[in-house]
């Protein structure tokens, strides 16, 4: 019974989302559409990071690196051949990529798969570490990716970045991917593999004693997270049209971490809401960066002021509601009922 009503709720949300996107595309201006797109991408990013950090309990800060891999994969694969020649004027692009021009969907899948492959390669040695050591190692990896991309002139066009990536990303793509991610992660967490991830988060010793292969499951969770990070990076590239290595700094990872912490570690619904709220607020609070005229007093604009506000919110949440703003006191209930 409960199972059925849940499916209904999911269907209703799905229909409302599609309707909402349809109306938004019709009546909203380009600026607002862009925010909707960004929200969708951040939903994917937040969920993928929550899978690694919140659900499996691995403190990873490598998200920006995996996004960079995805973004560059999509950028290089979808860019028209003539555009490639214009971009790579310092050094010609490596021959085997010079003439490829893929559609968006295969390019996005490639972005995810390559990011996941790197996830496995990095994860295999690094996931033996725990807590802050893992954070430092993954952070280092993300920085290495950025530096490597800055220096591989013939592959990524170095510090010049890529311009003229076709703008394939629209609200259907960004939210479509977000919905697929939501579906994937919630079904994953419903099954025994997801439960095994949670077990690892709760107690590694007990999880091993219950026959859960820590290494296999950690790498699995990590590479799934990396897959979606790569896809989201690809969406980002096709949304902005221009990417360069400096976009993928540590601050990007922290923005996603902000979403994960606000939404609550291990919570899918919370992450979705937090992703949308944070993305919208990032824009809505822009006035804080500009000078404000209060009639008598004039406050001079301080660039970066809104980030201060976000930091304060984050500190507040961590202190007052460590489990995110959607708090649930009871244990997660299982919806399977014998009947």
């Amino acid at each position: 019974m409960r199972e059925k009503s849940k499916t209904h709720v999911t269907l209703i949300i799905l229909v409302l989302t599609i309707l909402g996107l349809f109306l938004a595309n019709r009546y909203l201006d380009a600026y607002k559409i862009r925010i909707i797109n960004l929200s969708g991408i951040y939903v994917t990013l937040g969920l993928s990071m929550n899978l690694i950090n919140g659900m499996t309990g691995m403190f990873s800060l490598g998200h920006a690196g995996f996004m960079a891999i995805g973004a560059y994969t999509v950028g290089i694969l979808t860019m028209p051949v003539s555009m490639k020649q214009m971009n790579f004027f310092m050094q010609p692009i490596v021959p085997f990529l010079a003439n490829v021009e893929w559609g968006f969907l295969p390019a996005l899948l490639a972005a995810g798969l390559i990011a996941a492959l790197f996830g496995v390669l990095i994860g295999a040695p690094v996931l033996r570490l725990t807590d802050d050591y893992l954070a430092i190692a993954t952070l280092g990896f993300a920085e290495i990716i950025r530096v490597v991309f800055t220096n591989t002139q013939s592959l990524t066009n170095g510090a010049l970045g890529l311009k003229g990536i076709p703008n394939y990303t629209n609200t259907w793509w960004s939210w479509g991917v977000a919905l697929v991610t939501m579906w994937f992660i919630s079904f994953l967490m419903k099954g025994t593999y997801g439960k095994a991830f949670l077990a690892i988060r709760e107690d590694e010793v007990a999880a091993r004693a219950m026959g859960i292969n820590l290494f296999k499951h950690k790498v699995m969770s990590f590479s799934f997270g990396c897959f979606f990070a790569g896809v989201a990076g690809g969406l980002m590239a096709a949304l902005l049209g221009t990417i360069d290595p400096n976009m993928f700094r540590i601050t990007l990872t922290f923005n996603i971490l902000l979403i994960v912490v606000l939404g609550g570690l291990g919570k899918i619904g919370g992450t979705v809401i937090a992703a949308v709220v944070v993305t919208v607020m990032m824009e809505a609070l822009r006035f804080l960066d500009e000078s404000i005229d209060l009639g008598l007093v004039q406050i001079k604009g301080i660039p970066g002021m809104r980030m201060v506000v976000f930091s304060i919110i984050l500190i507040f949440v961590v202190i007052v509601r460590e489990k995110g703003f959607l708090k649930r006191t009871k244990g997660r209930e299982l919806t399977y009922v014998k009947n």
Partner: protein
Amino acid sequence: MLKIENLDMRFGGVVACNNFNGEIGNGQIVGLIGPNGAGKTTIFNVVTGVYKPTAGRILFSPNGSEQHQLTGLSPDRIAKLGVCRTFQNIRLFGELSVLENVFIGNHLRVKSDVFSTVLRLPHYVTEEKRLYEKSLYLLEKIGLQDTRDEKASSLPYGMQRRLEIARALATDPKLLLLDEPAAGMNPQETKELIQFIREIKQEFGLTIFLIEHHMDVIMEISEKIYVLDHGVLIAEGNPSEIQRNERVVEAYLGVG
């Protein structure tokens, strides 16, 4: 079922277990006792692969015909072979529900791969349904069916101990290692526990190896008892032999 040969476990200069030999027959309940710090839990940790022994070997034959060398295997491999345990200091998955805790115990027997669980392919859905029914049955067995959606860490101590046993049973073990199952229980609960251990042994065809400080529990249910002191085996035998053994009395009470 289990054969421990010349087991040595050293941590630097500390000898936690010195040349221990032991054997557990099919369907037996074997006790392991000794004063605090005697090395009882160390032996459990070595058997379940948490520690790699310094010397010696452990042989496990789940059905008599095949024989596995447990030394050097990882804990999850050993659990898959059919050796499962509970912990002295309870190690439940605290934030998860009671039912989830038991359900996770089933994971090692899941045959479907991760993608069929995400796509919820029919063969996985059937498998999952069966596992849920099994988990619910185990919860009923330990009398926790009404608290299935509670957080495991919110349960009272005695229930947490029982939940750990149910979680271990979900892995379909042949050999169950219980590390102080009666710790912190009152006499009434202890009595129920003894009954419960006998029941599950019967129903699931288990062999049980247990550490316990409550002498009444050990003496009542063990067929054979090993007594350790400072990592050395000082006595073995059936309960009445152990009760009369002078070295055991000395180890517990000291020499006057």
